[in-house]
């Protein structure tokens, strides 16, 4: 895990990109530590805000020379949601934001040339472009499948097309590219580019499906988890609240709850027990002690 720093970051830019907001922050000593997959936790609201929890975002771009970090976020929907991102969208250029970064681990990157497929749902593409650069620096090649519910919620299609002609786009309402789920062209694409590794970022359903297909085709697969736990991946940004756990199989074959904000967000997809997220699988370490016949909110 990266060693996170806490900084009062200056807001350098805040501008719309389609349905998203691009936020550029300047903070000392952070950009040079950031790798693709790392996260920044932003405190929303000031000292008199009713919101205590930091909000987590993937770093989209880090510029060590300019000492800047770029994040891309959307205002959350849902009937009682979006309080934090709505407030963030109101931030003022020139003001400051309290950030903790870099958090979590980065995507493992092959140290040689490889054909990589990068799959994203919605804003899941945010961390994939830095990853693509790294892969290409190592002589590899990249292809993309980018999906979203509709055209407005796609992010980075143009940028992907600059990098490679192999860009497939899916939207659930058919407003752009193939109508359907991002996982629709998955198997075919993997075969077509003879993928040696697939990286996926987005909703759990996407990550699960990518892992399944990759496993079937015997291709390595790394996933960046995020919305698996609607309550609070990255809520503390410290690794101490233990709200962000998901069951992951260790090297020793034992399942443990891993923290998405420390041991993650990037996991080998085959190690994540996708179907057991949101449960306490009986064989997870320490599960036995959870059920002595007493229930309670502790």
């Amino acid at each position, binding site marked *: 895990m990266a060693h996170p720093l806490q900084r009062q970051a200056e807001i350098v830019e805040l501008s719309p990109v389609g349905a998203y907001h691009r936020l550029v922050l300047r903070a000392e000593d952070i950009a040079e530590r950031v790798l693709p997959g790392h996260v920044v936790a932003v405190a929303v609201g000031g000292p008199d805000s009713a919101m*205590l929890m930091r909000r987590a975002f993937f770093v989209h771009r880090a510029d060590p020379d300019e000492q800047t970090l770029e994040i891309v976020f959307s205002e959350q929907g849902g009937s009682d949601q979006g309080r934090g991102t709505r407030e963030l969208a109101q931030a003022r250029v020139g003001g400051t934001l309290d950030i903790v970064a870099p958090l979590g681990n980065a995507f493992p990157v092959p140290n040689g040339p490889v054909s990589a497929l990068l799959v994203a749902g919605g804003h899941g593409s945010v961390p994939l472009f830095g990853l693509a650069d790294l892969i290409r620096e190592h002589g590899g090649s990249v292809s993309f499948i980018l999906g979203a519910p509709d055209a407005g919620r796609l992010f980075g299609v143009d940028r992907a097309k600059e990098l490679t002609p192999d860009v497939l786009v899916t939207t659930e309402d058919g407003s752009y590219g193939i109508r359907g789920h991002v996982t629709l062209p998955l198997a075919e694409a993997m075969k077509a580019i003879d993928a040696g590794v697939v990286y996926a970022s987005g909703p759990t359903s996407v990550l699960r499906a990518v892992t399944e297909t990759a496993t079937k085709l015997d291709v390595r697969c790394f996933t960046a988890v995020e919305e698996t*736990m609607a309550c*609070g991946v990255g809520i503390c940004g*410290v690794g*101490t609240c*233990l709200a962000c756990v998901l069951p992951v199989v260790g090297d020793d074959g034992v399942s443990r709850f891993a923290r998405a904000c420390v041991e993650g967000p990037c996991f080998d997809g085959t190690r994540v027990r996708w179907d057991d997220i949101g449960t306490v699988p009986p064989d997870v370490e320490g599960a036995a*002690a959870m059920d002595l016949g007493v229930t*309670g*909110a*502790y």
Partner: protein
Amino acid sequence: MTDATTFVAPLEGGSVDMTAPFGGGGTLPNPVTTASGCAGYGRELAKFQPLAELGSITTRTVTPQPRSGRATPRMAETPSGLLNGIGLPGVGIAHFVENELAWLAERGARVVVSIAGERVDQFAECAQWLNDGPAVVGLEVNLACPDADNQGLAFARNPATAHDVIQAVREVADPALPVYAKLTPDVASVTDIAKACVRAGADGLSMINTPLGMVIDTDTLRPRLSTTAGGLSGPAIRPIAVRCVYEVHAAMRAGEITTVPITGMGGIRAGLDALEFVLAGASGVAVGTAIFHDPGAPLRVLAELREALAARGFAKLTDAVGHAHQ
């Protein structure tokens, strides 16, 4: 400014004696600790501040066996608060002593180990493990756990069961180790529980653990947490916590309870919040939920509290303890 305003000569912040009484007649270099469960076993927090500079660090509650904790979702944000149903995940006491405690000792941390169980003997079992533990300066008995022998009612909600746990722990623990009882506010009289614990031998009291709360998700139409209810923490509950400390300290001043030190907690975000607890009667203060917002909060709160005491002319922390009762 009201007529009750007191006028004192401000001091330099650095010159305040922050030495804090700690149960059993001992002291700690300063009153600030971490609230159990909010600083893990210290490893993550150490990235943001040197642990040895805190008065102590209170660990996540340790249980006899390793525990996975509850299913997710385990946490929900509430207005100025946080609701959690984490479920005391942990490595178990044996692994804790061998690995975590050793690591903490290397860093020079003074460690208060929070312990719990679902039966009286499990608390005692944990306590026994800690008698020779390096760096351990005290035990905090988390009485908010459900009592398996009493239909799952939390030990802290019944004076008799609270008493039994404290007595059992006090019996097996090294007499040199202060034992703190951690109380919850979900009772008709927190003073009655405090009295029972002190009578059972508690050397100090920690107040408060999280009152029970619930959030219902208006999209799924179901409770937000997998545990249904959870514990409410953060600034939202601060007035409740300050009231509990004040009530119990008042009972001590009135001679109804033997005087023991109180560690106050509940929504401390800044030095002035900590000062409220001190004025109410706490000689120690724990920073919990605020860590999730600001991982450097414990040390910042210490510095701000020192400044606040100085600005009010208190030469010693202890001069301010319970000052609101005067």
